[in-house]
Every structure is written in C-alpha cells, then in structure tokens.
C-alpha cells in the first residue's frame, strides 16, 4: 500500500519523543478529499443541546441534517423524551428561493402547540446561512406569542468545525441561565456540565455526589431540563466534563455570575476519584461540621474506598489476560483520550495511537506528556491514516465511534464504542468495570484467530477465553 499520509496533514500527526518539545497543528478545517471523521458546526451544537429532554429541537434546513441525527445517541431521560424526536422544517426548493422564515414560524407554532415544550431550540444549518433567513427575529416573535423561550442556535455547518458548534450551543444555553428562581438551593451544590447521560451515566455520577452530601442543581445537558438550566446559576460550583463541549458555558457563567468551575472526567479510576475529591476539597470549608459526623473529605474517601474494594479484584482477574496488549484511541474530545490512556494502564495495556477530532494544542501537549515513547498522536484523522497506524502499531483494540468500527474490524482488531452511541455505561467505577469487561471480551475473543491478517499471530494456545477471567471477576 502506498503511503497514505496527506502532505497537507503531515504536521497534524506526531510521534512522542522523550525530551522533544511537542508541537502539533490542530483546529484547522478538514482537508478536502480526505474523508475526515469529523462532522460540522451543527453536529457540535446538536450533540450538546440534544439531551435537553423537555425542549423541542427544530432543525431548520433541508431534511438530511435532521434525518441523520434522529435518535442516534444514547442520551437517556428520566422524564420527557422530546429530544428523541427529529423535528425539521424540511426546506424545499421553493423555500430556498423565497426564504424559509414563514415556514419556520409555522413549524414552531405547530410544534409548540402540539408538544407544549418548556423551550424550543432552532438550529440553523448550512442552507439557512446561505439564504439568510432572519432566524433571530422569528424566534423572538414566536417566543412572545407562546410565552416560552425560543432560542436560535447559530450552527451553520460550514462556519467552522465541531468546536464552533459547542460554542454556539453554550451561547444558546446561556440565554436560559439566570432566568429562574434560585431559592432553596443548599450551599453544597453543583451543576454537572458536559455529560450527556449516555446509557444513564449521569445517574451514576449524580448518585456519587449525592452520597457525598452534594446537591446537584442541574445536569447539563444529560437528562437536562429547561427549568434546571434557568436556575443553575444558583449552584456554588460547575463541574465540567470533557475539554470542549460545555467549557464555554462554564466560562460565561463564571464571568456573569462568578461561579467557579473545575474540570473533571468520569472515566477510569483515577479521574473518577479525582472528580469526587476535587469537589469535596472545594466544599471542605463550607461543609457544616457537626461533632461525630464525618466531614465531606471523609465521606468521599469512604465512598471511593467502598467502590474500589468492589472493583479492583474484578479488574485484577481480567488484567492477567490483557497484560501487554496494545490499544489505539480515536475519539471526539481529547479530554476523554487522557482518561482512556489511564484506563488502559489499569488493565495492564498501553496506548500506541491516540487522537481526537477536536483537540487543542494544549490538549495534545498533555497527551504527549502522559503517553509512552513512540506513541502516535493525531489530530482530525481519516480512515486511511487510522488503518495505517493500527497496522503499524499492531494494536489489539481500537476505541472510537461507529465510523471507526469497520476500520478496526477489517483489520482483524477488536473495537470498543466509546462514543455517543454507546448503550453501556462506561463512566464511574461501575463504568470502569463495564469498560474492562468489554475490552476483555473483544480482545480475548477467538474470532481474531480466523481473520486473514492476524491469523495465528495472537493468543494462540494461551487458553484464556473471555469467560474464564470474567467468571473469576464476577
């Protein structure tokens, strides 16, 4: 196979070398003709806002943008499920010529009457950017008529990449923040930002915080509600997961309401524990101390110990089989990649390739700092590159999303879906166990012995099957 690295992308692919100053190009537009794994601004906005379950999410544009984002993600709601419907203005030729404002207004009126949502978000797609509909004005009119917030999301696909979409989503949410009553919010209170409640993950995290005695005011956006967003400025702290998605909202809330934020990741043992301890530390002095009652630090310590006492023996059994195996990671946000590197270490494995769609220079620097010598670090990759890296590093498992899956499978390599479509919870201590289980099951599957590329090269005669270690683990 001929070399597959596009000349124009050479500086977006780097190898970690000890002692070298690490630099990489990133945050560029995708290269034409390179089959990028990235989507668009609209995609970024949709990802962030979509889990707000009691709002109408109306995609203003031709049908495709809405059709392809209909209920494809696993964000669960404990109540309303409006977010799982796909609303579109379904623009037609006539609308493109004469403008889509009338149709947008009619669609909003119809959908609001029909579903009685607590708010409506209107996503502008590429075409709307071109034909120049005044979405703002329409939203304003409908909001006044219907008495609910109707919020434009400026997410024209071509106006940048996914990151720009995150920002647009945060701006849209900021229009809700501050509009609600904050009375009754206790001093030990946080908002959970940047988690989407895939497979019910936010419920796991929320339970941890509540066990520590911390009240969760709003979950943004997983299992999200308009009213929670409206009053979330009453919380004492924002805990922001993931490097990209909701960071802008946290910053805006800090500027406007003085609410500090901390970053967190809920993947893996260290990062999960850290996310809890950081919050505990923040509230240490505000925690009402009563004689004989353990303080928040002690409560948190007890929680982590309890969870680990259950988890660690289970991992140990699987680790025996996985020791020395290698992984490749290509995910949307770089922050998740940090956690994954650590997760694999816990399983006795190393990460030989790591990349993201939307990492920043600092993100990649940090990645370089925590990875092993020789690790390939890549920004905005494509199938040709990814397949080359997988082969070159001869990895045993690839972590990514649906678009990456066939690349791994074609190369006879295991795969773990760590993206928005996952149906297994991977966050928290419980999630770490699920993750280990999935990695173990796929890596230890006998099917790789039969794929042409790897025939005979792996696990031959090791005798370990997925079941044996898992039985020991459970």
């Amino acid at each position, binding site marked *: 196979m001929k070399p597959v690295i596009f000349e124009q992308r050479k500086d977006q692919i780097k190898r970690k070398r000890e002692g070298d100053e690490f630099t990489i190009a990133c945050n560029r537009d995708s290269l034409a003709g390179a089959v990028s794994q990235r989507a*668009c601004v609209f995609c970024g906005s949709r990802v962030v806002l979509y889990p707000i379950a009691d709002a109408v999410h109306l995609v203003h544009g031709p*049908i*495709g943008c809405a059709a392809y984002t209909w209920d494809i993600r696993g964000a669960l709601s404990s109540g309303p499920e409006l977010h799982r419907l796909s609303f579109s203005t379904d*623009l037609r030729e006539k609308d493109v010529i004469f403008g889509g404002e009338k149709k947008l207004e009619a669609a909003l009126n119809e959908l609001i009457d029909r579903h009685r949502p607590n708010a409506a978000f209107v996503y502008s797609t590429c075409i709307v950017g071109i034909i120049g509909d005044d979405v703002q004005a329409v939203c304003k009119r409908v909001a006044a008529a219907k008495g609910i917030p109707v919020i434009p999301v400026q997410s024209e696909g071509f106006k940048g990449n996914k990151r720009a979409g995150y920002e647009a989503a945060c701006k849209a949410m900021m229009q809700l923040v501050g509009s609600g009553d904050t009375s009754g919010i206790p001093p030990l209170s946080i908002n959970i930002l940047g988690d989407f409640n895939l497979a019910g993950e936010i419920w796991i995290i929320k339970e941890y915080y509540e066990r520590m005695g911390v009240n969760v005011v709003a979950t943004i956006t997983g299992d999200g509600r308009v009213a929670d967003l409206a009053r979330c400025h009453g919380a004492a702290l924002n805990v922001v997961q993931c490097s990209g998605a909701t960071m802008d909202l946290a910053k805006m809330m800090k500027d406007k309401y003085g609410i500090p934020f901390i970053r967190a990741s809920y993947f893996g043992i260290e990062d999960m524990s850290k996310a809890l301890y950081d919050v505990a530390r923040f509230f240490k002095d505000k925690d009402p101390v009563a004689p004989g009652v353990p303080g928040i630090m002690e409560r948190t310590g007890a929680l982590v110990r309890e969870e680990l006492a259950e988890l660690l023996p289970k991992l140990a059994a699987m680790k025996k089989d996985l020791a020395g195996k290698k992984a490749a990671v290509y995910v949307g946000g770089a922050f998740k990649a940090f956690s994954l590197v650590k997760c694999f270490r816990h399983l006795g494995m190393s990460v030989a390739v790591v990349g993201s769609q939307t990492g920043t220079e600092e993100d990649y620097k940090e990645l370089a700092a925590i990875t092993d010598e020789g690790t390939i670090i890549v920004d905005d990759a494509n199938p040709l590159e990814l397949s080359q890296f997988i082969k070159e590093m001869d990895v045993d498992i690839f972590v990514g999303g649906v678009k990456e899956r066939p690349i791994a499978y074609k190369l006879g390599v295991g795969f773990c879906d760590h993206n928005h479509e996952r149906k297994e919870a991977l966050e928290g201590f419980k999630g770490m166990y699920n993750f280990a289980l999935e990695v173990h099951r796929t890596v230890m599957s006998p099917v790789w012995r039969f794929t042409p590329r790897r025939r005979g090269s792996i696990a031959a005669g090791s005798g370990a099957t997925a079941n044996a270690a898992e039985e020991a683990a459970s």
Partner: protein
Amino acid sequence: MPPVKGAANTPGEAVKPDPFVSTTNACKMCKPLGAALAFMGIEGCVPFLHGSQGCATYMRRYVISHFREPVDIASSALGEKQAIHGGGPNLKLGLLNVMKKYGATAIGVATTCLTETIGDDVSMLVKEFKKEFGDLPLPEIVHVSTPSYGGTQAEGFQAALRAVVDQLATDEAKSTQVNVLSNFVSCEDIRHLKDLFEDFGLNAAILPDYSERLDGPALEDYVKIAPGGTPVARIRAMGGARATIEFGRVLDPEKSAGGLLAERFSVPLHSLGLPVGLRECDAFFGVLEEISGRPLPRRHELARGRLVDAYVDGHKYLSGKTAVVYGEEDLVVAMCAFLSEIGVKPVLAASGGQSGRLAGAVSAVTADILREPPEVREGVDFYEIAARARELSPDLVIGNSKGYRVLGRELDIPLIRVGFPIHDRFGAQRVLHLGYAGTQRLFDQIVNAVIEKKQADSDVGYGYI
C-alpha cells in the same frame, strides 16, 4: 388525536399533503446519500460530496451502521470562505487528493444543498480540473446534481445512475450484455440477481453493484477501495447492450437510466416492478425467458413451486390480516403487490417520497386482488404514519428500522424489517427481498412474526401452533 395532514382520500388516490409546516421523524433521507450509494456500486469509485464536511460524515455514519463496512465518502469540506466565494478550488483539491491517495479509478461527485444554492457549476469545474491535470492519469469523473430540497435518497440514487449512464455509456460496440438497473436493493439481492442471470445464461451488467464493496470478505489488509463494483467498461458498453431491465414502478423512464439508454441508444427497455411476490417475479422471469430464449430453469421452477406451496400452507395464519407499509416508494409498491397476494391487506402505503406516482403504482399492483387499493400517502413523516396507524390498528408493520419506536414498539405490532436503513438488527446487507427466493424468506418471516405474536399474547403458552 393529533391532526393528520391531508384530507381523507378516495382509495387509490394519493393524499396531497397540506402546505407543509413541519416534519417530525422523516420517512426519507437526503438525495446525495442515494447518489453516494449508487457510486459505491461502481468499480474503483469513491463517492465525493461537494459541500461542507458535515453532510458527508453524517451520511457515512448512517450508511456504516446499516452495512457495517467501511464507507469512505469524500467531501470538499467547504468552509465559510468557500461558501461565499465558490467551492471550485476545494472541489479540485479534493478530487486530486482522492485520486492520489485512494487511487480511485472513478470518482462520483454529488452536489449538496449548499453547493446547489451557492450555484457552483460542477460540470464546468470538472472540465477545468481535467484540463488542469490532463498530464496525470485521471480517473473517470461523473457528477450529478442532488439538492436535497428537491427530492429523497431514492431520487438521488436514480439521478446518479442516470448521470453515470449519460456521461459514460456509448453504443460504439454491440454486445450480448443485458443491462440490469436493480434499484436500491440489498447486497444479497444483487448476488441473487447475478445467480439468476447466470442460470439463464445471460451476460448481465448490474448497475450499481455494491454487493462486494458493502458486504466484503475479511481480507489480509485494509483496502482503500474494496474490490467489486460494476466495471466502468461495462457501463460504457451499456449503449450497445441487447436489452435493459429496470426495476421500479415509480420510476419515470423520462428520468431514469434505462429510459436514457432506450432513448439515446434504442436499447429495448423492460421496465418492471421490483420482483417481490409471485406475480412481479413471474413478470421478471418471463422477461428473462424471453431475452434468453430459455425456459425457466428447473431450480427456479422448483423455487416457484415451493413458494406457492408455502402460500397455501401459511394462508390461514395470514388471511384477513392487515399491514402498514412504508419506506422508499418502489419498495412500498413491491410489498403491496406481495402482501395482497398472500391475503394480507395493506391498509396504508406511505412514503416520504413525493414522486406523484406512488398511488397509481400501488393501485396497479393490487387491482386484480384487492377490492379497493390501500390508502396511499406520499410525502409523509413518521408522525403522520403513526397517527394513521393508530387508527387503522394493523396486524403488521413492514418497513425499515426507523419505524420501530413509533410504530412497532408503541403499537406493539411486529415489524418486518425491509429496505434501508436497518439499524437495529444484524445482517441488513444480507436481507434477501428479490425473486422467488427472496419472497419465500419474507413470507416465512411474516408468518413466523404472526405466530410469535400469537404465542406471546396468549396465556396458554402454546408450544405447538
């Protein structure tokens, strides 16, 4: 009861929807997706969407979860600057990259809503590209205009085929080739068609043929462009072929590839329905007999015989049952033809497409059996289909995965998955719909779904039905 758009219709007549205001859960996808899939069926061809990055990525994701295969769709990845000043430079750069890195021998360029609206002249840009890089070994570049605000994936698929034939076919050499324009069917369908033509000793050129590219074997290495697909040489030869068989009763020969071959090169066109169900299959096999001059080979005669036998064996389970059918228009027509002959009454035939030809086609295929044709609704979404289904309370739902939550689950009715996309079952690319064999599988599946439902609903726990 939520309002249903469009007034009640006289049977057999399509309901013209009211001036549309909003779509909830579309029963359609967009035009370039169909075009990209058609291009995937050409040997060495990389589909290329001229537009911003998002469209291509979304479509890839969507197609991958159906086929579970790598689906590389390139994009010109237009940004703000290009959207304002024109996408020409990005298109050319993209073509060059695909050509060099993928080693594509063909590239199928489809426009998106964006590039249609900004008015990029792709035909001219491709010409310029060919001139600028004339010293390099250039791939075949075909292009098609596919603004989604003007149609669905089915129309994009057909438009791409027509464009391919228009831009490549010649009648320089006469051949024994039979052109087969098989419509948007599964990989297994295409494989089955190949066998059929072989059994009749016919030299078939099936377009498009993604049966290997989108359902490929495990290979030694990752291949940039999976092997398989209709060779360009065979597309070229289409103008000199002895006949064309084109499936799709909703297809308008004036806009189809088969129509173009007939008009421009006088290749006789056999325009048929998708061969699903006994009568549509008989019509198809009749044409095969006619073209080949051979009688129905024994194995197909037997398959036909078994099918009729199964119809008889299963009729009591199905008699009097009703079904809601939705999806791409041509498939909906085929399913109505089939259902009506097994005693299942299609009570609603619905599609997000709006060809204006659905009602007529459904009437035509059901007329000799059903007392009155089913209600037909064009240009509808799942919100409307579900609303109507609630009123009709059918026994079965037949269509793609997208109806599961709003129809199958909510109404607790068995959903028989056919067509595209099938995202919630395994083996979508291996669903066989066509021929006596495909009909047999669908029939068994339908009978079993009815039995299973009966079993599940009964307190007795029959182990023998």
